[in-house]
């Protein structure tokens, strides 16, 4: 007869025991806790009172900031500029619709039991850019045209990161497949392309896109500055994407390739039906991580004169009407980025745990 299964004994740890074990075990740990705790209280206290307790939240004029703490009025007064840039006020509903659709596509991805969340995500990857293409610049369906030079702020940051990642995905797949190809010349071309782009900093790529691209193109053909930046970002990002996807391709066991060959599938059927679906699923966390780093890197476009969220803040903190608001501005941008990046990275870690089917060799 089988032994009855016993549950592991319950270990009840009282808070005092926990503190003793984790903070005050031995003289060395006690000393460490006391010193670090003291530094923390001394260092973090003033920061908190600057951020919250002494800060000014109400009012509308620079002169309302009388406290010794942060002047958050600067942010609330300029919030419109930080989010939409120079986008005309009465047309901002178009951007709001896009924000709403973006949230609708991706917030369900964080909720486990949301019905049909896959379809929302699919819409985000396919329908959303199409809607955005017609809605944000206008020009069709009787929508008023808004020049891309008027876009800015958070909206521009999201556009750059989103289009950058979406456009680089197919190019990255092609490059990754090329790099794993058995044809030496195709492999060589892909390796050179990937390694060159990965070796150079994004800033040189952006410089190149803004300075050299006009030279490369035939006469009469030219792109707006935003478009040039997007081309640079996409090419640069596709090299990183290719390496992430290559990781997935390499992780597929050989048996899968051989089984597909044994079934008589050709290259494209084998790749499209057997290999890529498995490989892409495996690298979703990697893709999300590249997205995070691209999202942070989009701030560099301010160097070539585009007003992303950091650019809008950077251009307003020197406003003579507001005195010494640099730190407030930077804290605001840092907070925006942190919320996005931390949230997405948590999501990707979660995904990694869930997708780990355990049969990776």
């Amino acid at each position, binding site marked *: 007869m089988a032994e009855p299964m016993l549950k592991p004994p319950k270990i009840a740890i009282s808070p005092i025991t926990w503190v003793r074990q*984790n*903070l005050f*075990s031995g003289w060395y*740990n006690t000393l*460490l*806790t006391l010193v*670090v*705790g003291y530094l*923390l209280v001394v260092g973090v206290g003033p920061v908190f009172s600057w951020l919250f307790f002494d800060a000014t939240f109400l009012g509308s004029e620079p002169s309302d900031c009388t406290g010794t703490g942060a002047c958050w009025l600067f942010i609330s007064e300029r919030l419109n500029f930080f989010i939409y840039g120079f986008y005309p006020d009465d047309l901002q509903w178009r951007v709001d619709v896009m924000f709403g659709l973006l949230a609708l596509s991706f917030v369900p991805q964080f909720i486990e039991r949301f019905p049909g969340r896959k379809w929302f995500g699919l819409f985000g990857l396919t329908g959303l850019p199409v809607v955005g293409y017609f809605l944000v610049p206008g020009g069709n369906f009787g929508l008023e045209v808004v020049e891309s030079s008027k876009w800015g702020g958070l909206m521009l940051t999201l556009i750059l990161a989103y289009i950058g990642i979406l456009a680089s995905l197919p190019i990255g797949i092609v490059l990754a497949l090329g790099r794993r190809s*058995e*044809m*030496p*010349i*195709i492999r060589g*071309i892909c390796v050179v392309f990937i*390694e*060159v782009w*990965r*070796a*150079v*900093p*994004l*800033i*040189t790529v952006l*410089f*190149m896109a803004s*300075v*050299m691209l*006009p*030279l*490369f*193109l*035939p*006469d009469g053909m030219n792109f707006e500055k935003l478009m040039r930046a997007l081309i640079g970002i996409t090419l640069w990002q596709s090299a990183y994407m290719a390496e992430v996807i290559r990781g997935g391709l390499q992780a597929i066991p050989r048996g899968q390739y051989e089984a597909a060959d044994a079934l008589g599938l050709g290259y494209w059927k084998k790749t499209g039906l057997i290999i890529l679906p498995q490989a892409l699923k495996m690298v979703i966390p990697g893709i999300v991580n590249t997205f*995070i780093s691209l999202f*942070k*890197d989009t*701030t*560099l476009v*301010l*160097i070539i004169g585009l007003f992303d969220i*950091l650019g809008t803040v*950077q251009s307003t*903190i020197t406003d003579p009407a507001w005195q*010494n608001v*640099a*730190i407030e501005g*930077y804290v605001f*941008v*840092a907070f925006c*980025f*942190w919320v996005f*990046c*931390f949230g997405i*990275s948590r999501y990707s870690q979660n995904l990694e745990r869930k997708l780990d089917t355990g049969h990776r060799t």
Partner: protein
Amino acid sequence: MKKQTVDSRPTGPKPWYDPRIRSIFFQFVAIALVFWGGWTLVDNTLTNMESRGISTGFGFLDETAGFGIIMSLVPYDATMTYGRTFLVGLMNTLLVSAMGIVTATILGFIIGVARLSSNWLVAKLALVYIEVIRNIPLLLQIFFWYFAVLGSLPSPRQSVEVADSFFLNNRGLYLPEPMPQEGFGLVWGAVIAAIVAVVGLRAWAKKRQLATGQIFPTFKVGVAILVILPTVAYLATGTPLEWELPALKGFNFGGGITIIPELAALWIALSLYTASFIAEIVRSGILSVSKGQTEAAKALGIPNSLTLRLVVIPQAMRVIIPPLTSQYLNLTKNSSLATAIGYPDLVAVFMGTTLNQTGQAVEVVAITMAVYLTISLAISLFMNIYNRAAAIKER
């Protein structure tokens, strides 16, 4: 009986189904496309440059630059050539990268180990540091240090000073500069001799340990040699080193070593940012060493300190080094953000000012990209050599 010589093999596939012929065809098409694309680009570029009156070739490198650079490691003034500006920019890039790599590594290792500390407070603090810093764009951090922190320092007349020799103000950090006098070469000789002695000592101690099993305290004796020998030489030659102190002259400081705020902001931001990534690498490296290894070492009676040095760290390093080198590469590439705050690195000086003045975009961008490509290839070459040396030798 006569043998039948009927060929029973099936006839080969049609040429357009033959994988070999197909592969040759596709590669031919690929080459043709690349050449066509490249030729179109070159053709367009030449036409465009001609119509805009931009000259071509690398002759501009010998022309006079005519602009000043706020910081250079090699002698430079505005009468020198564009080639010289390239060198100045390159040196500045390498300087800030090297400084950043050293501090980021030290900080990263400390934080990575702190993350694994048994002390709850220390571990959580390290976690908060990592999660906050690496989720905020580097450019924003550079701006923060440059405009918000260093920009709000007092003016030169109200400098923060320590012991009349260190001054901190919004123009930079001023340090005393060592001025080697006659006879200082002997001290350098002593340093080299000490290094040679330590290397020899190490070889001897290893040989002795293999032969007798006795462990020689190489580390302690080595440090002693490294400290004592140069000190003795320094004192014996009559302290041939003088310090030039920075002093306020008019509106600014003169003399001593100056760390300009651009360099300081870039250095601090790069170090803090990269350290958060290195910390995670170090943590995962240490965690990757399986518990059985430490337990086996304990079972063999190896003391704790030796277990760490001989068992855990060598195995952790195997996991740590490859991503660490790629972080170094990232740091070097990220140092190009210097151009946003005006630190004269390669991108700012060469791709910025020189390109704007000469208009020779193609050549300048090509040279700059070649530099980064060379650095990147050198680092990956080093990594491959290391990987080959450190890979687990299975028998």
